């Protein structure tokens, strides 16, 4: 279509040499368009296929899931989902509950603790501020391997080893510094004029934080909370190490592994369980993802 236009234009101008120039600004040749879409379609295919295949498999019986001639539909039904939800294949709902509890508690605690510190780091110039900021960055570097033994020791001492609360504390060691850093970044985008206007209107520094900055940073809080949640939701190492071997204390990340241990390869059931776990996560992810890129747009109201 575009090349046809271009050809027509160049013909009327009577110069084939103009054909290339006659593309209007921002237009692409057909070839470039095909290349662009081709690249994007292949990338999207690679990106989606593994998950798509899990979805397909989740409807197949376990025996068909390991068939050497895979088909899209192979005696597909929803039995896997029913089995998983009814607990016939391990305490799925229990694991789900544990994951929600642990991730939820971690999120609440981390965001609550991190918010005020993030604000102080964003607004106040107090001695020690720089070293704190650098410290939070440095903690990003800590391999869990250096902390795992002392934390294990600490939990043993506190009697929290094998308990959900213990795991929450352990997760806080990584999520709190990270959330602080993230929230500081969001608070930085709220103009300080707003704080000062609030001070003039009669708020204390804490009042400014609570009544003006927190409401304005809601998108940032949402993203940070989501991040904390996802970190705890998908964590494997500490969960494997610190939760007791009893089935009812497992999180999803640990529990699902039993589907595919040596003597059990229940790919159909694992797939169904995976879809059930992924669905809410994916849904929430797409709700907050625009904030991940765009940053805060609600921040400044300037003329």
């Amino acid at each position, binding site marked *: 279509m575009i090349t046809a236009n271009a050809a027509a234009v160049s013909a009327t101008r009577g110069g084939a040499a103009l054909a290339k120039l006659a593309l209007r600004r*921002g237009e692409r040749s057909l070839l470039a368009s095909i290349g*662009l*879409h081709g*690249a*994007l379609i292949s990338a*999207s295919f690679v*990106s989606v296929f*593994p*998950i798509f*295949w*899990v979805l397909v498999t989740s409807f197949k019986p376990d025996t068909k*899931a*390991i068939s050497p001639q*895979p088909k899209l539909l192979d005696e597909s039904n929803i039995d896997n989902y029913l089995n998983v939800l009814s607990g016939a294949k391990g305490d799925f709902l229990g694991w789900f509950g544990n994951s929600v509890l642990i991730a939820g508690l971690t999120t609440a605690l981390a965001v609550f*603790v991190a918010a005020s*510190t993030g604000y*102080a780091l964003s607004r*106040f110039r*107090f001695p020690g501020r720089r070293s*704190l900021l650098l410290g*939070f960055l440095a903690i990003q*570097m*800590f*391999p*869990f*391997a*250096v*902390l*795992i*033994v*002392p934390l*294990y*020791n*600490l939990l*043993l001492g506190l*009697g929290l*080893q094998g308990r959900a609360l213990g795991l929450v504390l352990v997760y*806080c*060691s990584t999520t*709190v*510094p990270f959330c*602080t850093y993230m929230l500081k970044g969001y608070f930085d985008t709220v103009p300080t004029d707003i704080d000062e206007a609030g001070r003039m209107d009669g708020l204390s520094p804490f009042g400014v934080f609570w009544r003006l900055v927190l409401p304005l940073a809601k998108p940032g809080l949402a993203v940070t909370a989501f991040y904390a949640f996802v970190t705890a*939701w*998908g*964590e*494997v*190492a500490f969960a494997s*190490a610190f939760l007791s071997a009893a089935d009812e204390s497992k999180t999803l*990340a640990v529990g*699902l592994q039993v589907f*595919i241990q040596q003597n059990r390869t229940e790919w159909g059931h694992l797939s169904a369980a*995976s879809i059930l*776990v*992924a669905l809410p*996560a*994916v849904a929430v992810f*797409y709700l907050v*993802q625009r904030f991940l*890129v765009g*940053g805060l747009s609600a921040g400044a109201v300037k003329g």
Partner: protein
Amino acid sequence: MRAFLVRHWYAYAMVLPVVIVVGVLVLFPLAQGIYFTLTNINEANIANPVLDRPASYEFVGLQNYLHVLSGSESYGAFWSTLVRTLIWTFGCVFFHYVVGLGLALLINRPVRMRGLYRVLLILPWAVPPFISVFAWRYLFNSQYGILNQGLATLGLPTPVWLGQSDLALFSVMVINIWLGVPFMMVTLLGGLQSIPHELYEAAEMDGASPWQRFRNVTLPGLRSVSSTVILLGVIWTFNLFHVIYLTAGQNPHTRILVTYAFERFFSGATRDYAVASTYGVLILSLLLVFVMFYRRAMRRQGEVW
């Protein structure tokens, strides 16, 4: 002193909770972890209040470090594991960045169905990683995985992807690259969109070709975002545990420093905490050295952070 407190009272009150959390959950354990590397602590001699058993581990000096750094197979073959870790880290980060940048550039153009492409391309980030890992294990399965089915149809060899060979390292790297590209893409896309449009127009007026515009406008414009995400990428990948652990278990061909530390912590009859901690401290030292050099290199290029 009083004036000092009056002025900064609010700031310190607001910072205190995090300082406490970090102190109790990070700094104190860190110090203790470093101490443990000088002992022979393991499951049998750690203090366990549940069993009403006091600690009975002993100070052994630098013995753990000597064992580990000797590169002995029974202590995880440190040097060859380090090489594997470096291949894993830089291979993954390199492809994360290159593929991520490529996709970000494509998606930053006005393309029909751009929104849809973006949603599809971010999917690997949205799915909990342990689920993705299961999905890939299924794809990579040598007997009934769809990858080998496809290769067989084309008449190509069908290798054992996750077996006892270096192919397993390649496979886990593929999985991790697939997992990490969306994050890079999204951050770099943000960076691309923050480059003022006028710069491209000015470059065009100056007669710069598309390649020259990429070299002289896009890449410098992405410099600060890139230096940050690459640094974070290296640190995260160096420490990344769950992909390898969930895909390949304790396969020595995919063993990197962190997974070995976890092996020593979690399995074996004795659960050797001292060696696990030693690995942890060595990993941390390596990262610190890397960050130091990285910062210096960035500063030389005029990047201040």
